């Protein structure tokens, strides 16, 4: 085959890769060591941006909120998705409808979901009234206007959105377990619970780790919900790292500083992913 033809075939991918992935990742790092902004000269300032981040209360709060979000949603999402998938896999009447219905929230635009939940969470919205009916100490102005309930409300929404997607992944994993194993277990007289503990769960460990990895990568980047629902408020109680990057870099145009925050997050996500992938790799070899 002619080299020229080959180049045409792969060129669109190489260009996309270079322009929108490789370059931004490298340039981000470079920017983070400068005081780049759209105003004035750019100087190289070493690690000053990184040092500043650790004394910036807004950033630290955003980081805390992000970690709170990640660790507060992933266990729930994973466990709920697993339980639902196991139940659906039992071929309960209507299992196809359940599977499809649960999946719908995760394919609708996050922007739309956030808009709908803003209305539901607002004063007089259905979820606000439901909270009152249940006798909970509901903030008078709706969940999103109180520093103590805004972030948990967004987290609850996010679990609601994501669960169906992971149900789908778990179902694929459960379906790929060889039927013979179940037959053998059944012949041994194992009931539903024993089959669950001794066959299903051990067989889908690598899927669980995969689910946690992609959910971690996704959750650390939470932004759309925050922008649409609260713009980081009230009093920064829902600001996250990506929201901080957006606000600092594209609102105040302190792009060097914002890049340092972004890169820090990038490294954190990378470390989490690598640790988790190591776990997956280790598991696969042991089998």
């Amino acid at each position, binding site marked *: 085959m002619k080299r020229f033809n080959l180049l045409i075939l792969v060129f669109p991918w190489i260009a996309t890769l270079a322009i929108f992935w490789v370059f931004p990742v490298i340039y981000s790092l470079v920017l983070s060591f400068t005081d780049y902004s759209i105003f004035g000269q750019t100087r190289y300032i070493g690690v000053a941006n990184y040092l500043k981040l650790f004394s910036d209360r807004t950033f630290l709060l955003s980081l805390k909120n992000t970690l709170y979000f990640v660790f507060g949603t992933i266990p729930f999402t994973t466990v709920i998705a697993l339980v639902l998938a196991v139940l659906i896999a039992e071929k*309960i009447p209507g299992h196809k409808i359940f599977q499809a219905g649960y999946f719908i929230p995760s394919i609708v635009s996050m922007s739309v979901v956030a808009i709908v939940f803003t209305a539901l969470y607002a004063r007089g919205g259905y979820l606000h009234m439901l909270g009152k009916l249940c006798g909970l100490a509901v903030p008078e102005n709706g969940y999103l206007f109180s520093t103590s309930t805004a972030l948990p409300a967004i987290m609850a929404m996010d679990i609601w959105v994501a669960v169906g997607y992971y149900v789908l992944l778990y179902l694929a994993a459960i379906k790929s377990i060889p039927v013979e194993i179940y037959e053998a277990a059944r012949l041994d007289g194992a009931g539903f619970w024993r089959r669950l503990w001794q066959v299903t769960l051990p067989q889908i460990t690598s899927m669980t780790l995969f689910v946690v990895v992609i959910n971690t990568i996704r959750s650390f*980047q939470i932004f759309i919900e925050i*922008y649409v629902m609260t713009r980081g408020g009230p009093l920064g109680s829902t600001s996250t790292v990506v929201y901080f990057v957006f606000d600092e870099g594209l609102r105040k145009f302190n792009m060097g500083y914002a890049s340092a925050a*972004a890169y820090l997050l990038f490294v954190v996500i990378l470390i989490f992913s690598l640790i988790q992938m190591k776990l997956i790799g280790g598991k696969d070899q042991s089998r």
Partner: protein
Amino acid sequence: MRRFGKITACILLTVILISMLFPFFYMIIASFQSPTPTCSISWENYSAILTRGGLAGFLFNSALVAVIVTLGNLVFCLMAGYALARKRFSGNRLLYISAMAVLMIPAHVVIIPVYILISKLGLYNTYWALILPFLVNPLGIFLMTQYIKNLPDDCEQAARIDGAGEFTILFKIVAPLCKPALAVLAVQAFLSSWNSFVYPFILVSSPKLYTLPVGLAMMQGLQGMSTPEIMAGSTIATMPVIIVFLFFQRQITEGITAGAVKG
């Protein structure tokens, strides 16, 4: 599972199903709420958001961008997948692995350099900014390469002996065999383009270029439109997704699990 267990599970799953779909019921019902209390269904919110709210323009932009992005992905991912699956060249493996590596890169973390780059190229506030970043997606590369690798290459060899050129072979022989994979790719590309928020949000500031998710989010922040009107807009933005889902559920599932089970 015992009978009692099955009934309990069924009830539990039904309750969860209702709570999963409730926000959408609310969205649709609210969208028909009339500003003046009458009992009949009112389309006023829809006409208000489409005209006064400018949603008709956002709808056009979303559709245009989604169609171009979908076509781009079909052609370019097929091309790259074919090269990666069939041709030996230095860098082949690297390009394939890079597609998987990119799936692990947190895209929202690089918004600053992408913004600067697009601005420097003079593409800020243009359709190019909405289209270019999504024209080839790594999942598509992965999908097509895998699929073509598993196809027998007899027909290709025969055509080559008959003197057919590479592009004739690709588009006349390989592409028709790839229909199932291309369907998965098309659905996935369309949905992710239709729902895409972050890049369109940071790379465009003129309301003339807003896509539906961005336009709706912007209206939410302003006082101009009422909640029922915004719900009407949200319903309009959601309908195509639901329609695609109803017709292509299998393709959507395959697209998602392909990346997961093999990745």
